[in-house]
């Protein structure tokens, strides 16, 4: 099954920032319940936008969100101290967002992750910057998997983010991501691939169309998770239909259920 990491509780979004600043618990709870009803597997929580308030905002969000849902959370912060605090407050095994090979990030995150019961998003980023080729992405993915396995992570708990880059600036960015996903999913069998799907459409009009088609094409290559908006009905319909076509939906039951619920309309 596809892992949907619901991206809506992020304080860089204006309404979430305001709701967090005003401690508007109803707004947050309703949003989280909508994400769950729409098929989110994880709720991502990012409290980083109000500089100087991340710790208190994260604490408040975690307590409010967990009153509204039993779903596991994706703890989204670059700061191990914030993640440490958040880890102690979650009821379910969390997904941590994220580690990368950037030196300043890698060492403290490895220290943080060691011995913890959690899953992890691993970005194919190192100190030389964004990846420029399939080999760049794959070799970084491989290093990350080896390092994480070295401290006891199972492959099933590792979500590799190949770092999707926009079509608007280079024509090869789509195939680069798709080829990399296929290589990762075959040669590092057992891991998951995820990431910010909508990066692909940055700078283009009618972005949702680009995102939908890209999701279908990525799924064909093995992509099995995304950080996305579960309230976007059309892309969720693509996802459910894609899972069905890939044979991951026994007797097409989820597909049929979604059609009957009015979630898939062609």
């Amino acid at each position, binding site marked *: 099954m596809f892992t949907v990491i619901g991206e809506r509780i992020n304080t*860089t979004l204006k309404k979430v920032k305001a709701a967090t600043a005003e401690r508007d618990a109803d707004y947050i709870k309703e949003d989280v319940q909508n994400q769950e009803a729409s098929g989110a597997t994880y709720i991502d929580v990012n409290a980083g*936008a109000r*500089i100087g308030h991340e710790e208190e905002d994260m604490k408040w969000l975690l307590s409010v969100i967990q009153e509204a849902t039993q779903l596991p959370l994706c703890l989204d912060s670059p700061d191990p101290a914030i993640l440490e605090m958040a880890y102690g407050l979650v009821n379910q095994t969390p997904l941590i967002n994220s580690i990368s090979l950037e030196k300043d990030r890698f060492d403290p995150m490895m220290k943080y992750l060691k011995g913890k019961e959690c899953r992890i998003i691993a970005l194919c980023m190192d100190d030389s*910057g964004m990846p420029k080729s399939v080999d760049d992405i794959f070799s970084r993915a491989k290093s990350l998997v080896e390092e994480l396995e070295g401290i006891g992570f199972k492959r099933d708990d590792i979500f590799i983010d190949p770092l999707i*880059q*926009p079509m608007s*600036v280079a024509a090869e960015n789509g195939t680069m991501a798709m080829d990399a996903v296929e290589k990762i999913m075959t040669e590092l069998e057992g891991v998951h691939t995820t990431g910010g799907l909508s990066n692909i459409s940055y700078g*283009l*009009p009618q972005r949702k169309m680009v995102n939908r088609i890209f999701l279908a094409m990525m799924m064909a290559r093995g992509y099995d998770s995304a950080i996305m908006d579960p309230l976007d009905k059309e892309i969720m319909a693509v996802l459910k239909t894609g899972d069905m076509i890939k044979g991951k939906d026994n007797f097409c039951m989820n597909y049929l259920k979604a059609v009957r619920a009015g979630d898939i309309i062609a």
Partner: protein
Amino acid sequence: MSDLKTITETLISGDVEALMSQVKEALEKGTAAGEILANGLIAGMDIVGERMETGEMFIPEVLMSAHAMGEAVEILKPLLAEGETNTAGRVIIGTVKGDLHDIGKNLVSMMLESAGFEVTDLGVDVDADAFMKAIEELNPHIVGLSALLTTTIPAMRDTVDRIVQSGKKDSIKIMVGGAPVNQAFADEIGADAYASDAGSACKLAKAMLR
């Protein structure tokens, strides 16, 4: 349509072959290279920038025009007198410390170059020391700071503070941009301008030096 106007239109369309032959033709007819650059090509990129800002043109179209511009400038370069190129001003630009994202910064850099600025791109993950060193060496009119991550916002503030502390701020305009940045933040840290896209960055840069 005059030759220059045709060149402007062709540049906007991004047709590099047609542009090259029109530029050559204009030169053969005796139009000065500097005239073609300023009133044909740069004038065209101004319009491209405006259309980008209003959402009429999209990034791939802007890139196509900029590429055509680059090819045409290669023809003109040997014919341009000293001081006829890069006349708009000197800019140094970079993505601040801790941030490795470069797409937005590269677009701004490219648009500024197309508008006649002399741009020195310091790359990504540029700390305040590196910005200060480049400022000492190059004596720029404008310093551009880019960031995509919310976490690198403090690095942007630090860099502005360092420029102010150095006493160089009077002769430098600071422009900031990137997903987590807005006008309020630019005001708060003491930057002179915030640009939401490469087109407006270009327009603001020109306005600040006028």
